[in-house]
Structure formats: C-alpha cells, structure tokens
C-alpha cells in the first residue's frame, strides 16, 4: 500500500499543565490515521490520565509512548526535540505530526538537524503519495498554495490548527502504553526557564485554535466591547491587529499577523481592520472572511467574502443583537 507509511506515525500530544489535551491534537490524530499506525507521544513520566487515554483510543491511537525525561524541563524545546529524536530513531518512525505553535516550530528546527528529517511547518494538510509524505501550505501572505514532498525517510510536519475536522474512529482502540527512559545530552539543557507565567485561560477559545475569530483594528479606537460581544455570541476568540496591540488596547498575545498568531478559522470577522499585508499574512487562509470598515478603500475588502462599508459601532451591535434573537428563538 503506497498511501500508508510503513513506520509508525508519531503525534506529539500537546497538553495543558492540568493534563488535558490541547484541542488541535485531535485533528493531528485524525490526520495521522490516514498516514499510518499512530503513536501518541506524551512527555512526562506520569503519563496521560484515564480520560485522556480514553480520548486517544476514541481517535484510533495504537500506542502511547510515555517519555520519562529524568527530571529535565519539558518546557525547554531542545529537551523535547532530543527526546523525540531518540524515540523516532528507536521506533523507526516515518513521520512526526505536531501543532504549528511557536515552541513546536523550535522543536522542529532542532529535530531536523538531530534526525536529518525534512520539515514542513504551518502546513494545512498532510498525506502519503507514493510512499512519501506530502504536505500542503499557503505561502506569501496567503497568496500562493504549495505542495511539498519530504525526501527523507523521516518527515516532520507541523500543522496549523483547523487543518482537519476531528473524527473519532468507529470502534475505539485500547492503546498500549509504553514507557521510555530518555537520556539527554548536556547541551539540551544549557538554557533554563527562570520564570514562566501561563496565560490566564479565559472563557473564550484560544485564538490559534478557534473556529471563529473576531478581530478589532485601528477603527475600534481602543473600544473592543462591540468586537468582544460579537465574538461571545458566536463562541469565538478575539484577535487584534498590530496597531491595536502596539497602542496597548489589548495584549500582544492577541496579535494576528506574520509576526503574531497565524490563524485559519472557519470564520474571520475583521472590524475596523484595514488589511495591511502583515495582517493578511496571518489570516488570509481563513475559510470565510467578513470585513466591516468605514473606509471603502480598505485593502481587506479585496479578500473579503462579505465586505460591509459602515461604522463598526452600529453594524456589530446590530448583528450581535440579531444573532442573540435568532439563538433565543431557536431555544
């Protein structure tokens, strides 16, 4: 079978400090099953909890590899990369899938050097063609799409959130749990984490993972209330442009763009966003793009499926109110 990889497909099981899986991991597991036999990789000797194991079985994981880092700091990306390099060599892995977060891309860069893997980051799909892993990605601020084949026996692919629709398997597996001690070279621990502050989890979905993102730009003039209310009625996340974060209207972690968070939600709504090229680079892969801006010359209208020339402070609240009414009517 040329469309299935012979070696195991590793999926890095990103999880929150409380041990719960990050949402995009289920997408990776769904994609991974199409490539071959899926091994979930859990960092930390304690292993996943019972709920997580059940979820992994529901998504067709064959084996969970639990890596005991011997007390090394799993928050350091070289530690993670070296542990994955060891494991992939030991198992003869054909591919590793991980979410395209900032820290996972650091992991991928080191892993590429350590294991000789070909690496594709910010991918939107992965499949096997003639025995090779092929990954799709959009480039040049979302204006081009490419398909890249990995030429090495071990492929590392970092996938953006919302790359696949998570689908459980028809009959759940009972994953075998295998512990692996990891011996790390000293140079993986040269840097140390002096301080770390987990971002406070709001009730809204995480920006990089949300299906719906409502974004405020310069046109909000610092008042994000209309943006937030629309996001909440849609169950979405709130994002911002570089201008809005630089002005201090909202935290830097909300910035969407080439140097901020890259998003590809089903629905993007930009309010008072002009659509500068930096911003477009971070959101142009979104499914449906809606823009509300009072300036009809805004470049974002060139890429919007629905463009509304109007004042966001009247258009957004009216939409929010109408959506609330519809939801209430639906009960």
């Amino acid at each position, binding site marked *: 079978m040329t469309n299935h990889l012979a070696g195991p497909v590793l999926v890095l099981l990103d999880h*929150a400090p409380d041990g719960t899986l990050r949402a995009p991991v289920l997408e990776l597991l769904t994609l991974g099953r199409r490539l071959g036999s899926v091994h979930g990789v859990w960092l930390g000797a304690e292993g996943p909890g019972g709920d997580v194991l059940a979820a992994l079985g529901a998504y067709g994981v064959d084996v969970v590899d639990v890596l005991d880092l011997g007390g090394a700091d799993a*928050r350091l*990306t*070289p530690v993670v*990369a070296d542990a994955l390099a060891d494991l992939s060599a030991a198992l003869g892995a054909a591919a590793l899938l991980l979410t395209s977060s*900032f*820290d996972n*891309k*650091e992991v*991928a*860069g*080191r892993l*590429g*050097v350590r294991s*000789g893997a*070909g690496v594709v*980051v*910010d991918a939107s799909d992965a499949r096997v063609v003639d025995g090779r892993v*092929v990954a799709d990605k*959009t*480039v*040049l601020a979302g*204006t*081009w*799409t*490419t*398909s*890249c084949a990995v*030429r090495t026996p071990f492929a590392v692919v970092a996938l953006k959130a919302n790359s696949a629709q998570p689908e459980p398997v028809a009959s759940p597996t009972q994953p075998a749990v295998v512990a692996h001690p990891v011996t790390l070279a000293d*140079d993986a621990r*040269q*840097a140390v984490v*002096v*301080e770390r*502050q*987990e971002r406070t989890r709001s009730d809204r979905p*995480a920006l990089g993972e949300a299906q719906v993102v409502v974004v405020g730009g310069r046109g909000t003039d610092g008042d994000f209330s209309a943006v937030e209310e629309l996001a909440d009625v*849609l169950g979405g996340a709130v994002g911002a442009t570089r201008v809005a974060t630089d002005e201090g209207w909202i935290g830097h972690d909300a910035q969407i763009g080439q140097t901020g*968070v890259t998003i590809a939600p089903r*629905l993007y709504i930009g309010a008072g966003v002009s659509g500068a090229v930096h911003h477009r680079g971070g959101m142009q892969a979104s499914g*449906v793009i*809606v823009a*509300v801006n009072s300036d*009809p010359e805004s470049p974002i209208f060139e*890429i*919007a*499926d*629905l*463009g*509304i*020339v109007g004042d966001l402070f009247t*258009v*957004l*609240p*009216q*939409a929010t109110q*109408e*959506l609330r009414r*519809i*939801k209430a009517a639906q009960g």
Partner: protein
Amino acid sequence: MRIVVCVKHVPDIQSERSLQADGRMVRDGGDGTLNELDENAVEAALALVEEHGGEVVAVTVGPDDAVDAARRALQMGAEQAVHVLDDAIAGSDVFGTATVLAAVVRRLGDQESVDLVVTGMAGLDGLTSLLPSALATELGLPLLALAAEVRVEDGAVRVRRELDHATEVLEAPLPALVSVTDQANEPRYPNFKGIMAARKKPVDVLTLADLGIEPQSVGAAGARTEVLEAAARPPREDRVLVTDDGEAGLRLAAYLVENKLV
C-alpha cells in the same frame, strides 16, 4: 562582546511576490530589501555592543543582490560583513542555510571568539522561523528564541518571550543564540554618516570551498523537501460588498446563518 548577526535579503513584502514552477521564490524582481525582521536583530546587536563594548559582524548568504542586506547592516552600524556567494547554494532549505551560516560563525570564532549570534524571528519570504533553532543546534549553542526583550549581564543572556500559552523568561550562559521579535526594539535608520562610513567597511566574500562545505550537501541537491506544485491562490469568488444602509448588521447576521457559521 563580539556579536554575529544573520541577515537575509528578501523580496519586499509590499511588492508583488511570486514563485517559480519549482516552488522557488522569484528573487530577480529588483525590489529586494533587508528582511524587515532582521532589522530588529541588527538593532538588538548594536544596542548590546553600545552597552557592553565590542563589535557587530553581519553575515548574509545568497546571490549577488544579497550583499544589499549586509550593506544595510553596515550602514546601521555593524563593523564588518561576510557574504557567502556560491551558485551551489541556490535552492537550499533551512538546513542547508544553517550549515552554511554555522560554518561562517565557526570561521569567525577561529579569528576571535563570538559571544552571541542574533537573528530575526523569521524571514518574511519562507516564514518558517526554523533557522534560529537549526543554527543553534548546528553550533551547539543554547537557544533563546523569540525574544521580546534581551539583556546581557555577568556573562549570561536573559530574554523575555511570549509563547502561545505562556510568557517566559529564559537564561543561558554566553555564548548563545538569540532570535528577536519585532517587539524587541525600534530599528534605527542609517544616517548620512553611517551611510558614508559603510562604504569603507569590509565585506568578506566567501564560497562553499572557503568554508569546507561539499556543494551537494546544500542547495537544491541537499534540500530535504521539494515543492511538487505551486499555484497562485485563485481570487475569492462571489465577493459581496455592501454599504450600510442602516440594516447591514441584520444582513451580516443573515449571511452567517445562511452559511451555517452560527
């Protein structure tokens, strides 16, 4: 302190950028520029040298035009530059580029020790942000990536960085590799004096042979991925532009319902 800054010449992101059939970037548009995010790297290096003494060496890899990126760094205040120019480098992936840059850093280190390597957070062409991590690994240096703030004190470097789920402070002894974000600083513009001084500064041009690198290990021949297809994304169809007549919010709500986005 002796600081090496890696700089890249990229197509201006405000220009019309495109790919060739083999997926390589069209780089002969004549509107190339120093990668904007590398200006932050140069600025960070210059600020550290101004505080602690020493010099900044700019390194670039690429065809003839690439020297413009190094020139810009010299105009901003770097003391000298290295340009690795070799046809066999064309089509390198990030690992080929890291191999070449690592060889340059080692060569510079043989002359006089290198305390810090600084890069931008990403190249605005490929935008993979893999290079800092790959280069640090090649050099065996601690990696402190995505610094929004960099401090050097008592032989150690400390950075503050924002990740997807947390804010962190990382510390490592020198020598180390730091990548900086565009939050790290406001890059200076070269002034007239800087532009005139840059004309007299040395740019050392090196080939792969000078660096002892086998040509087939880098470039398209050594690349670990290959682009099978590259296509300009078709324009969005059925775009609708309306002007608010007092009911655009209702129209927006209806649009979301019709398209099953609620």
